[in-house]
């Protein structure tokens, strides 16, 4: 294992500190933990909280700041933050307008948030949640629902902008759910990441293989096959998205998310394949975000998210934001 780290057990806290030191005008790290809040605390508007495992940087803390999150709460590597940590973050940023928790649909994340929300309600904090389940590689019909993937970054942008407008908790939740209803994501992986604590790969994949639909932690996907060209890979992936959701004649924002081990160069190659394919299918692209938005350490691969826009969502997408990752 070759990694530029110090002690594996300090990874999470050192990551948070590094991020806070880079943007002192935006971020404030709570002492002794890796929870990040805004430097300028919101007073009267709905506060947004997001948490997920560490290892998915820049999520969650890269999205803390004006126009997006009020608190980012990372857990240990690839595991959900615990209810006590979530409650600590919720209490730190709560306002009279209430708190909206954004949750990616993994069983652990959902349970930990549910417990934290119950504890917050016992302390008379108004708290609601929206669960993001955008992965078309998993079945909608399962009682657990679909997994959540990088599309959550777009929902944070939308919900954050709606909250800055002064909308009430139920309106912010409703808009977030509306945005999520037109959001679909599909991932692909070609190389596992190496877990720093034991130096082992997070999953096994043959030297010439790739897997479409794999989850953020190497959960099984829908198709394991030999490596394909960028064009063929994109076609396979977009076909799965378009089979699931009809975007014809819609205007969409495209989010191309690198998983940590795919160079920007390849992401740009992928982008032009996506643009060609969507043009052929009568789908208009309003804007494209390309980069590492929700990674899995150095995993090779990427995901494509499409989110349908209407005039209101478009205005929210374009609204001001000042975070480490997204600035408008």
């Amino acid at each position: 294992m070759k990694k530029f780290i110090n002690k594996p057990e300090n990874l999470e806290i050192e990551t948070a500190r590094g991020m806070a030191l880079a943007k002192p005008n935006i971020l404030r790290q709570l002492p002794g933990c890796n929870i990040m809040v805004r430097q300028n605390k919101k007073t009267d508007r709905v506060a947004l909280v997001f948490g997920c495992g560490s290892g998915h940087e820049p999520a969650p803390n890269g999205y803390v700041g004006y126009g997006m999150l009020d608190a980012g709460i990372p857990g240990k590597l690839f595991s959900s933050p615990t209810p006590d940590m979530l409650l600590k973050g919720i209490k730190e940023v709560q306002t009279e307008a209430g708190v909206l928790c954004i949750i990616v649909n993994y069983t652990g994340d959902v349970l930990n948030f549910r417990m934290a929300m119950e504890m917050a309600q016992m302390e008379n904090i108004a708290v609601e949640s929206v669960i993001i389940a955008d992965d078309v590689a998993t079945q909608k019909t399962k009682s657990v629902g679909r997994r959540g993937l990088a599309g959550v970054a777009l929902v944070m942008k939308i919900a954050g902008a709606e909250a800055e407008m002064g909308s009430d908790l139920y309106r912010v939740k409703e808009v977030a759910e509306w945005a999520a209803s037109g959001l679909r994501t599909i991932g692909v992986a070609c190389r596992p990441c190496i877990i720093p604590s034991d130096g082992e790969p997070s999953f096994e994949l043959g030297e010439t293989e790739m897997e479409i639909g794999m989850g953020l932690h190497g959960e099984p996907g829908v198709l394991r096959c030999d490596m394909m060209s960028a064009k063929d890979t994109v076609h396979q992936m977009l076909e799965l998205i378009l089979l699931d959701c009809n975007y014809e004649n819609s205007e969409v924002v495209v989010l191309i998310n690198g998983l940590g081990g795919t160079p920007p160069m390849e992401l740009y190659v992928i982008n032009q394949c996506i643009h060609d394919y969507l043009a052929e299918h009568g789908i208009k692209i309003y804007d494209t975000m390309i980069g590492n938005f929700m990674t899995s350490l150095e995993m090779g691969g990427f995901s494509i998210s499409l989110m349908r826009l209407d005039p209101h969502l478009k205005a929210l997408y374009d609204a001001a934001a000042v975070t480490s990752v997204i600035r408008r």
Partner: protein
Amino acid sequence: MTGKEFMLAAFEAISHNIIEHEEYLNHLDNAIGDGDHGTNMARFSHIILKDLPEFSADHDDLGEIMHHVGMCCITEIGGSAGPLFGKFFLQASLSNKNNTFMEAANWVLAFEEGTMGVSQIGQSTEGEKTMLDALFPASRAMQETLEEGKSLPEIFLAGAEAAEKGVEFTKTIQASKGRAAYIGQRSIGHQDPGATTVMLMLQSMHKTAVDMHVE
């Protein structure tokens, strides 16, 4: 009737039992989950062994001790098991607030309320290949034995045996909750690690009750 001494001995026995089965629980979890259930439960158990005697030195309220164990689950276990076992003990603690002694009926009620708490937070019930497949049958068996007027060791034994049957049952069904749900039919044939932990806990409760000759 049992007091603080029994409760501490029981949690100590549970912790040792889980630590002994760390690798076994990881192995079970590896087949259908992410393979860390044993590690997570063992981390919690080590903390209980170290911390619970200290905490209980100046706490006699059994509800408070159970509540403390629940909070320890929440902060230390992580994953899905953390909030689930946490909810179990927090909910079980409620009806024993201000109790310095617990009768058999108190234990049976606490177990039932804990089970309902897990069902509520997990939005799940029996037959979904989760810890509830051990909790619900154990709770019913304990209730029945209590009504028959049996002693506490017999009540825990009935609970442990029902939990064991529940664990066997989880081998035959497909998961519809938790990470295992995504592998669908491939989950059949594997036993649920969470249900197994519940069984280990009840076996330790039984053994402690026998060893300490409680009634």
